[in-house]
């Protein structure tokens, strides 16, 4: 197997984040009111804890399955990381602009909060997907 712990962990992150936040957004949309409710905050906090648990279990399983211990990141890892963060920063910038538009055009805090949350989630997905892409395709 020529995939590293770092690459495999990005798969765990991609799947975990997509599943957890996908479920969250599926549950809360369409919104019941103009503001974020206490139930939504509780749901979000619960799913956040679940996401942390998924990450911990994923890391333990990957370490157990790894044939070799991964050394510290080398120059290729650092380059892949930089490319990934560049992708994520574009998504975050667009999401912030969308959040500002939501603040301008909608009433209450629901759409502003969730536009910003969605942009953070998408930025995280973009970062992981970019890493997986460059690790697999090369550059």
């Amino acid at each position: 197997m020529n995939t590293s712990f770092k690459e495999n962990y990005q798969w765990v992150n991609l799947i975990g984040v997509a599943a957890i936040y996908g479920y969250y957004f599926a549950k809360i949309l369409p919104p019941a009111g103009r503001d974020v409710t206490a139930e939504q905050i509780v749901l979000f906090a619960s799913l956040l804890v679940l996401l942390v648990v998924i990450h911990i279990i994923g890391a333990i399983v990957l370490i157990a399955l790894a044939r070799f211990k991964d050394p510290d990141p080398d120059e290729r890892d650092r380059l892949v990381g930089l490319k990934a963060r560049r992708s994520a920063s574009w998504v975050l910038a667009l999401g912030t602009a969308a959040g500002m538009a939501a603040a301008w055009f909608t009433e209450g805090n629901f759409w502003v909060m969730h536009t910003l949350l969605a942009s953070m989630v998408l930025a995280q997905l973009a970062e992981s997907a970019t890493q997986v892409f460059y690790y697999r395709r090369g550059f």
Partner: protein
Amino acid sequence: MGKSVSHISNNIRALRFNHGEMTQLELAEKVGVTRQTVYAIEKNKYSPSLEVAFRIATVFGVPLEEVFEYKPDSGPG
């Protein structure tokens, strides 16, 4: 997936074979990179920095041009 994206090819696989069938892990440890990076370099999926390229050549005790070869696009003329 797996398509070569570099104009730089290399003879690392043959050099490893000629040096007592050195493994990718052994080479990676001597050079100071991960085994996956050695694999990526061998498969032309990653062009290393000059420093890593020189370190690889030093491990095999050969000049850089015996490890790496640059093949520019063949333009007109």
